[in-house]
Every structure is written in C-alpha cells, then in structure tokens.
C-alpha cells in the first residue's frame, strides 16, 4: 500500500511541477522541433538512403530521430533536478520517509516517462506530414516510445544520482548523451558511416531504440527499405536496456 501510494504521489508531483514551468515545455519540445525543421529543410532532397532502395525526404528520415530527441531532452530535464533536490530540497524529506527506496526510483522514472510521452505524442501530430501517412499503429508507437523514454530516464537518473553539481550533468550531456543520440541512426543511417563508426553505432543501445520507434511507424517492407537492426533485436535491446537502467538506478539509490 505504502509502495503504491508513495510511487503515485511522486509521479503526480513530477507532472504538476512540469505543467507549472512553461519554459520546460519550450525546451523539450521546441528545440527538437526547430532542429527538425531547419536540418530537415536544409538537407532536404539531397539525402539518399544507403540501402539504395529509393529516395526519401530527409524530413521523413529524421522524424523518428527527432521524437527520440524529445524523449532524451525530457528525461535530461527531469532527472537533472535530482541533483539539487537530493542535497537541499524535496528529496531530503523523501529519503527520511518510511517508504521503500523503489518508490523514489519508480515515481521519478514513471513521472518523467509520462512527460516524455505526452510531448512525444504532441510532436507525432506532425507524422502525417512527415511520413506521408499516419503511423501504422498509434498504440504500438506509444508503447515503443514509453519503453525508450523509460530507459533514457533510468540512464539520466543513474548519472544524476551521484553527481555533485548540475554543471557536471551538463558536461555529461554534451560529451555523452548528445553524441549517443547523434550516433544512433537518428540523424544519419548506419550504412552510410565509415567502418569504425558503424561499430560505435552498433554497440550504442539507443540505436535499437531509434530503430524500434522507426519500425513502429512503418510496415515491414518500408522498414526493410530504410535499413536497421531486425525488429525483434531492436525491441529486445530496448527492453533489456530499460530493465537494466531501472535495476541500476535502484541499486545506487539504496546505496546512499
């Protein structure tokens, strides 16, 4: 009972806080939108798929990657608050409450995942324009987006928990999280990259997240034409990543 009550209350707090800070919406949804419009229009027609199976507008190729960018930014913005909260804020009181540590982790990750999902879905309104058709199954896309967001928030939580300052988090974001997104097939296809980079892309768990999102939007033949890991592999790695991040976040929280 305490577990559910604690988790729900912390989840609810994340949502309420978010909607009271309008600038966060601009940051997590606005920036990717601008990226998509500018980069998409700039590259435009000069983009071709390395599989050689026809042409694709770059705005269309970049669309799933942009959605994942929204998930990434939302998870960064909501986990960054852990750093200040834990030292001198709301989290201090949560840590001395008789509620299991798992409520702290689950409340935070569920809250952040919900926010990422809401913003991702708002952006999905543009899907018919970008993809030329609606995604093949909206519920499937929602499910995949939730899974990817869950894993990314878990990762953000893991980084933030032991971090002393928000500046440190920004450094990690620029040096690690953004490159992780750049090298995930979100911005350019795996096939077009030089050999060493292809390896980096293959070991990057987010590659599988981006591909899973892309797969959820197309039918099998179209997904095959764009190229990427097999759907089962993409979904498997994404689920495993989410699970591992949750367990690791729980472990660091119990530790201190």
């Amino acid at each position, binding site marked *: 009972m305490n577990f559910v009550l604690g988790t729900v209350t912390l989840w609810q707090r994340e949502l309420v*806080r978010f909607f009271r800070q309008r600038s966060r919406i601009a940051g997590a949804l606005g920036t990717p939108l601008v990226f998509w419009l500018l980069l998409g229009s700039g590259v435009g027609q000069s983009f071709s798929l390395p599989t050689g199976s026809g042409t694709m507008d770059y705005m269309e190729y970049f669309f799933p990657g942009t959605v994942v960018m929204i998930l990434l930014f939302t998870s960064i913005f909501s986990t960054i608050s852990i750093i200040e909260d834990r030292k001198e804020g709301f989290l201090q*009181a949560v840590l001395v409450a008789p509620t299991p540590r798992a409520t702290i982790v689950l409340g935070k990750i569920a809250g952040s995942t919900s926010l990422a999902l809401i913003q991702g879905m708002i952006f999905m309104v543009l899907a018919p324009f970008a993809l030329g058709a609606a995604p093949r199954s909206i519920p499937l896309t929602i499910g995949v987006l939730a899974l990817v967001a869950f894993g990314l928030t878990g990762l953000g939580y893991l980084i933030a928990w032991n971090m002393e300052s928000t500046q440190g988090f920004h450094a990690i974001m620029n040096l690690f999280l953004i490159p992780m997104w750049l090298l995930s097939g979100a911005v350019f296809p795996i096939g077009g990259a030089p050999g060493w980079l292809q390896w980096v892309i293959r070991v990057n768990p987010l590659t599988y997240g981006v591909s899973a999102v892309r797969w959820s939007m197309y039918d099998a033949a179209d997904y095959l034409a764009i190229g990427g890991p097999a759907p089962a592999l993409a979904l498997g790695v994404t689920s495993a990543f989410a699970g591992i991040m949750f367990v690791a976040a729980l472990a660091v929280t119990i530790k201190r």
Partner: protein
Amino acid sequence: MPVVDVRNVCHSYGAHPALQDVSFAVEQAEIFALLGPNGGGKTTLFRILSTLFPPDRGSVRIFDADIRTQAAEVRRNIGVVFQNPSLDGKLTVRENLIHQGHLFGMHGRSLRTRIAAMMEHLRIADRSGHLVQTLSGGLQRRVELAKGLLHAPRLLILDEPSAGLDPGARHDLWEYLERLRDEEQVTILVTTHLIDEADRASRVLILNKGTVVATGSPHTLKQRIGGDIIAVTSVDAERLRDRVAEKFGLQPALLNGSLRIEKVDGHRFIATLIESFPGMIDTVTLSKPTLEDVFIDCTGHRLWEDE
C-alpha cells in the same frame, strides 16, 4: 529507556574525522540542544539521527530501534525539519503536505483532517493554496514544521531551526516547540550554533571538533564556572595578564585582545583590580556566565573562532 541512545559514534569523511566517540542519551519530553560551531560535527550527527546515513562505527537507537537495521521503524517515529527547506516551491502549501502524508502512508479523509489541523496550529491555513516559493522565510519554516509533524512523530529533529528567521518568528517557533513538549510530550532535538537558543533547552550537549566537550542543563553547565565573568580591555593586555596572574594567582585568558577572568564575587574584585593597576585598564565589564563562557572554558576558544 531513553528516546535517543547514541553510543561511541565515530564518522569520518575520507581522512577528516567529523565525529569521534560521541555518546549521549535524550530522555522523553525534553528539548535537547546540540551546540557547537559550524564544522563542529552537528550536521553530521543530525544526518545520522535523521537516518540519511549510518555512522562508520558505534550504535544509534531511537525508541529502541536500531537506525541501521530498523530504519523504516525509526522513520515512522521521527519528524525531521531540515535547515535547507525540503519543500517544493512549485507546489502549494497543501500539495506539499499531501505528498508528505502519502509518503508516510496517510491518505483520504484522515490525512485531510490532519493537514487542516496542522495548518491551523501553525497559522498557515490562509496560505493553503499559495505556492511555497511565494512565502516568506518565516512562513516557509512553519510549513516545514507542519510537514515534519504531520505524521505525529514522537521525536522531532530540527537542524538550525532559527536560521534565516527574524527575532519575532524565532520567538514563535520556540514557543511552539515548548508547547509541543509540554502538551504532547514530544521529545525535541535541535542543532544550533546560537547561545540564546541553547539556553532554552532542557539539556545541552556541546560539540567541538567532533567530540563532546560537555553535557548538562544550561544551569548546571554555567555553575561549573567559578563565579562571575570579568572582561577587561587594556592598552597592553599581555602585560596586564602577566601581572594579574602574578599578583592574584589567577589564570586570565586572553581572547581577541581582551582579558577574561573567572572570579567569585566579581564586583568586589573589580575595585581591587582597578586600584592595583592604575592607568592600565580601559574598560571593565562584569557578567554572569553564559553557555559561551562554558564553551570557552572547555575549549579555550570562542564559539565563532573556527569559522
């Protein structure tokens, strides 16, 4: 059985020892003050008592539950008021209290009734719907107190509760703490670096550089000092110190350029002192010993010197 039982607690941050062999007990319905300079180990002790982390060595039992192995039980029995507010500024007063209640397993009508009662007690009912970040420091501290007391803890632990409060708000806070102790038998433990605050406690523990230098009621601690405190300023304080020592067989302390003499019947001694050293004395003040004098007596330096 004491409410708080701390035995031989040691804790260090890397090579720096923060607490060394600290032992004490707090009894039911007393206000117990941990007094000491900043960096003296108070905050470390506060964090250990509030179950944020266990000490490296030693045992801490609260209501006979061990903080290492029975943390959840300890947490149900204690209310913690942090120095840095643990309130969420983006939420209203009521929302903050609702979340706190949920985290302690309270819900529904009983939670709403309790929140209303606490807001009434602490006179914040009219602020119920205000965002916490719009409240003054004094009001925020009251909300913080309501939050710490929401689950009706039997022990309340407060870290520097008067920090950032104006004298009026500080007075209100202490009056409320005394009422809690007297009417509801709540045991209260506060950390403080303020002498007048420690003076209001039932008992005081003086911490310096991580060790306990004295424990007792403010009255008995002050009685330890042999009589009155005479402070003397002089153009040549060092020479005066040597001559006073020579002539009267006393051991005056030299603190920040002024002589500090402990003497029974200080008012009589002052006359003798001035007659003995004409022209050497600029000012003389006579006072009853305070807890700061106890601190100086135990450590040889002032409470603030380490900062």
